[in-house]
C-alpha cells in the first residue's frame, strides 16, 4: 500500500514564511486533518501536496518517490477538490460530473453519473444548468466526483463549506467508507467532523 510523506516542507509567499519544517507520514487508511487559522497556509500546503505548486524547501514523496518525477502516475492516484469547485455554469450537473471525471481519467457513462448525482441528493436536478443550482448543490456536484473517481488519495480543501447537515453526514459517510477500504485523505475543515474508527492525525499550522 502506498504512503504519502512530507519531509521538511516550507512555504514562502512573497517575503513571508507561511510555514516551515512540516513533516508527516500518511499511510493507508489514514486521515490527516490540516488545521490552523486563516492565512496560515492550509490551502498552500494542499496545493503542494497535489502537485500544483512546488514547496520552497523539502520534498513530497508518494510511495517513496518524489511526486514531481511521478507526474501523471501520481495524478492518476489522487483526487483534489479545491475550494473552486470546477463546476461550469453553462453545463448541466450531469455534464459537469462526466467531464470532470473524464479529466480525472475515468470515462463515466450516463447511467453511472446519474446514480452518483442521485446519491448526492441531486436526483431530478441532473439536467439543470449549474448556474441555477444553489451554492450547496454546486458543492454536491463537485463532491459527486469522489463517488466515481476510484483513486487512493483524496485531497480535500474545505469540503464541507455551504453544505447542510444532511450533506455533511453524506460526506462523512463517504470519508469513512474510503478509509475503511484503505484509502487516504488529507483535508482541511473548520467544522468539527466525527469519523468513526479512523486514525486521525492533526497537523497544526500556525
Amino acid at each position, binding site marked *: 500500500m502506498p504512503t504519502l510523506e512530507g519531509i521538511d516542507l516550507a512555504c514562502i509567499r512573497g517575503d513571508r514564511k507561511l510555514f516551515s519544517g512540516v513533516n508527516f507520514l500518511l499511510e493507508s487508511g489514514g486521515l490527516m486533518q490540516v488545521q490552523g487559522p486563516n492565512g496560515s497556509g492550509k490551502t498552500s500546503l494542499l496545493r503542494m501536496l497535489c502537485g500544483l505548486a512546488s514547496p520552497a524547501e523539502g520534498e513530497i514523496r508518494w510511495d517513496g518517490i518524489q511526486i514531481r518525477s511521478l507526474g501523471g502516475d501520481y495524478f492518476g492516484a489522487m483526487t483534489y477538490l479545491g475550494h473552486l*469547485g*470546477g463546476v461550469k455554469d453553462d*453545463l448541466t450537473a450531469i455534464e459537469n460530473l462526466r467531464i470532470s471525471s473524464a*479529466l480525472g481519467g475515468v470515462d463515466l457513462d450516463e447511467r453511472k453519473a446519474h446514480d452518483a448525482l442521485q446519491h448526492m441528493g441531486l436526483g431530478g436536478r441532473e439536467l439543470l444548468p449549474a448556474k441555477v443550482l444553489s451554492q450547496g448543490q454546486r458543492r454536491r456536484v463537485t463532491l459527486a466526483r469522489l463517488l466515481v473517481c476510484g483513486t487512493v488519495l483524496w485531497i480535500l480543501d474545505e469540503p464541507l463549506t455551504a453544505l447542510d447537515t444532511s450533506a455533511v453526514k453524506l460526506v462523512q459517510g463517504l470519508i469513512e467508507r474510503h478509509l475503511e477500504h484503505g484509502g487516504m485523505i488529507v483535508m482541511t475543515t473548520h467544522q468539527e467532523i466525527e469519523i468513526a474508527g479512523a486514525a486521525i492525525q492533526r497537523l497544526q499550522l500556525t
Partner: protein
Amino acid sequence: MFFWILRRDLLLAARRRSDVLTTLFFFIIVVSLFPLGVGPEMNMLRLMAPGVVWVAALLASMLSLGRMFSSDYLDGTLEQMLLSPQSLPLLVLGKALAHWLVTGVPLVLMAPVLGIQYDLTSDALLVLTASLLLGTPVLSLIGAIGAALTLGLRGGGVLVSLLVLPLYIPVLIFGAGAVEASTAGLGAGAHMSLLGAFLLASLVLAPWSTAVSLRISLE
C-alpha cells in the same frame, strides 16, 4: 480525452453564442468599413484587400484569446486539467482546436463573401480563403501560449497582444503575400508552403509550451 475537451468547449460555445458572434461581427464590420471609408476606387481596393482581410482576421482572433483559459481558471476547471493523468499538451491542443473551430472557421467561411466588396477575382478569393484556412489555426495555437502566460494578470489583455503580435506578424506577411503574389501572376505556392510550415511547427511546439506556461501561471 482530446475529444472530451473539444466537445466540452464546443458545447460551451454553443451555449454562449454571443461570445462567438462578437468575434465574427467584429471581423465583418472592420472588413466592410474599409471600402466605405476609402471610396470606390476599384484598383486601390483590389490592392489593399488581402492586407485588410488578414489584419481584421488577426485582430478578431486576438480579441477572443482572453477567454481561452480565463473562465476555466476562474472556476477551477483549469486546476483539474493540470492535475489530470492525461497529457496536458494534448488537452491544450483540444482547446486550441476548439478555439479555432469557434473563431477561425467562421472567419474563413465569411472571407470569400467579404472579398467580393473589394472586387477580387475568383482566383484571388480562392487563394485568400486557402491562406486563411492555413493561417488561422496558427493564430489560435500561438495565441494559446500568450493566453496561458498572462493568465490571472491584471491588464492581461494588453500584455497578451504585446506577447503574441511579434509571432503573428510572419503569418500576416505570408498570408496577405500569398494573395498579392497570385494576383501578380507569381503563384501562391511559396507563400502557402511557408504558411503550412508555420502550421506544422506551431502544431508541435505550441501545445507543449502552452502546457509549461499554464503550470507556471498556476503555481
